[in-house]
């Protein structure tokens, strides 16, 4: 069912990145490594975006997630360093494993399987980033969420600074 072409190979590689990186994140003892694995996973996801004709999102993914969030996490790791190396990685291992496994199965059963066997092809027409940009400022479009999002970011930024500031002075 799957023909071997560039897209398939790309998919396969990106899958490796994504899932491998994810597993790495949750299993690493060293949080710096964990950060790196996170970056790998995020990179894989960016690849998916590309495959799914969302290049802008892929770029944003890399820029924002990897470039900002992952770095941020690294800083946080460094700031809370005294406990970076933990002896105990996990708590409640078995319940969590079972829970996540069950969840996975349910998701497969509920989400994946219903769409099984269809949607082999995707429509050809795609939108461009230009359209996206236009939609964001279009009065009939997404200008309100866009504004709100900016507000949100501002608030988050201020809040984060406020929460994390030094109390010494």
């Amino acid at each position, binding site marked *: 069912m799957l023909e071997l072409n560039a897209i398939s190979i790309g998919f396969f590689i990106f899958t490796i990145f994504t899932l491998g990186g994810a597993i790495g994140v949750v299993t690493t003892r060293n949080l710096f490594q964990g950060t790196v694995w996170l970056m790998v996973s995020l990179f894989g996801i960016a690849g998916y975006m590309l495959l799914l004709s969302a290049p802008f999102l892929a770029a944003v993914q890399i820029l924002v997630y990897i470039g900002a969030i992952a770095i941020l996490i690294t800083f946080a790791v460094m700031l809370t360093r005294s406990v970076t190396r933990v002896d105990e990685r996990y708590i409640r291992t078995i319940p969590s494993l079972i829970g996540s496994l069950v969840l996975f199965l*349910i998701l497969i059963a509920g989400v994946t399987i219903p769409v099984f066997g269809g949607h082999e092809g995707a429509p050809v027409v795609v939108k461009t980033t230009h359209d996206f940009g236009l939609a964001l400022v279009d009065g009939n479009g997404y200008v309100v969420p866009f504004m709100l999002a900016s507000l949100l970011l501002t608030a988050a930024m201020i809040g984060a600074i406020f929460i994390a500031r030094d109390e010494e002075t």
Partner: protein
Amino acid sequence: MEFFKPDLLPWLIPVGPLVAFLIITLATNRSKMVPATDHHEYGGHHPDYDGMEVPVVTTRSRIFSITIGVIGVLWALVISWMTIGNAFNVHHFGVEVLQSNFAWMDTGETTLNMGVLIDPATVIMLVMVPIAVLMIFTYSIGYMAHDPRQSRFFALISLFAGAMLTLVVADNVLMLFVGWEVMGVCSYMLIGFWFEKESAYKAAIKAFTTTRIADVVMLLGIVYLYMVTGTLSYRDIMYNPENLELLVTTTPIIFGGFAVSAASVIGIFLIIGTVGKSAQFPLHVWLPDAMEGPTPVSAMIHAAAMVSAGIFSLVRLYPLFAAGGDPHHGIMTQPLVFMAVIGSFTALFAATMAVAQSDVKAVLAYSTISQLGFMVAALGMGAYIAAAFHLITHAFFKALLFMAAGSVIHGMEHGEHHVHEHGDHGHDDHHDDHGHHFDPQDMFNMGGLRKTMPVTFWTFLIGGLSLSGFPIITAGFWSKDEILADAWLVLSEYGSGTHGLVFFMLAAAAFLTAFYTMRQISLTFGGDARTEAAEHANLGKGLVSVTMTAPLIILAFFAIFAGFIGVPTDFPILGSIFSPEHNAFHHFMAESLPLPEATAGYGTLPDYHPDAPPFNIIPVATSFIVALGGLWLGWFMYWRKPLKAGEVDPMEKFLGPLHPILKNRYYMDDLYIWLFVKPSQWFGKQVIVFLDKGVIDTILHVIARVFTWLGDLVKVLNLWLIDGVGDGIPIAIYNFGGWLRRMQTGRVQQYMLFILAAAVIIGLVLVVSSGAVTAQ
């Protein structure tokens, strides 16, 4: 107005006194409280009450109760006279009678009736009873004038009179018995009228108990009579030859060949009732003690009413006793023999005791017993009419004697009071200067009272002579003579041993009667006063003395003249004056017995109508001799040389060792106490100890303990269950909450795990319900 028909009028006779009783009891018995030491108001001194306040009847109540009581008796008197008038108008009275009855109670096939009957026997009673009772009532006005409970007294004697009249007019044995019993209760209440005195209430109990024993036997007789004949009405039994024959021929008991007929059994049982009521041996013991009651009570009980009721019942039932025999021809039946023996024995027995008594009322008490013995013996001999005659005359003179004795006592107390200005004013023991109890009833304290109490003396003398049977001019002579004549007649003509026994014993008793009567009169009225009190004894002036002497005079009149209605026809001289054709009384009374024609056909029944005994010199001479002889002996021993103070009774010397025995009543009281009273008390005590305390108390204690145990059990259950549950629920909830609280760890990841679990479940539900899995 219906009631004024001759047949129904007798119903009204007892109504007067009975209604008087009710009114006095309910309305006119008000009391006020006075200090017990107030002698003027509280006439009876009782040392236990000193310093207290005691209730005394108000003057207004006194007046009302006296008035109502007297009105009640007057009512009875007037209606009785009307009835007597009606009776005389009845043609062939005796065969024809005035009667009315109604069915009272159904007892299966037969019915008990209540009714009234006026026949000759009733008539003569109706002549005597209301007059005697009225005299007694009048006397009581004065005698009880200072008693704190006078209203109650009048109420009780009204009830007594009402009961007696009920008994007299009754037409059946049951109603007679009702009146009988009510009189028994009244006697109890009246003898024990001064109930603070121990001797008084004990005497009351003694009277009631003794007569009650007899009454039980009598009741058995009545029941048996009813069983055999199906009726209790006199006319149906006594005047009905058929029933009489039936009673004689029914033989319930056979002692080895010796058959006892129903008539005998019933007769003897009913006679036993009279033995109790009329104080015959051996149930005579209550009568002397009954002197504890006020004197009018003694007069009433022992003369006019109660004991007369006993004799009257025998008179009524006479045809039953005589059935199966023929007393006038010397053939006796068992009841008749019983009566004759008991009666004559009692007569002599009591007379012997009377000669040794020192209490003026005691002598009269024994005299009563003795005279009743005369009457019972007379009936036993078949001298039916003589017995009835003697009953009437005796009632008059004995009532007179008792009331006169009461006056004497009253006078003695006045004298005592006079002597001690601060003395007691009451009816119990007094103290003289020397601190000894002064007994105003002791004849040896009296003497010379004829000077200070002349009316009382003369009336007492008349009564006493009548009692002794003083020839010719006293009523007692005629009635006693007739009894002796009857006895002699049968003795001489038929050689009957029973009659002979009766004759001799009664003659001896009559002699003794005359003797002790004269002794009594001499000691009381003769000679000089032996004590200071006797010197000053008098009744005073005013209403009290009038009401106490007037009845005496009236009764004295009867004591003399009542006898003349029964003079035998062939008595020399007097017979032709008073009874030219026939002995009036005899002729009149005889009609109450069944006619010879009626009984002729029945072999077992006698000819009830005897002829009056012809004049025979022997019984008359005997009467003369015993009466005059006894009187002379008494005069000789006591009046001629009167006793001085402190002198010993000559009888004591004469009788020697016999005297104490007589004085102590042959120790019969002590015998009875030892034989009956003490064992009963012992038994009672045993019952208390064993039954009451032992059994019943034990049961009660056990029950109490069981319930206490149950209570404790419930308490424990309460504690356990209810407390347990009540406390347990909160504790359980608390523990559950505590257990539930463990979910709140405060740990975020755990909460997220729960969220995941919830989400998984919801997801499962969605997946399954959407059929996504199966659709594939």
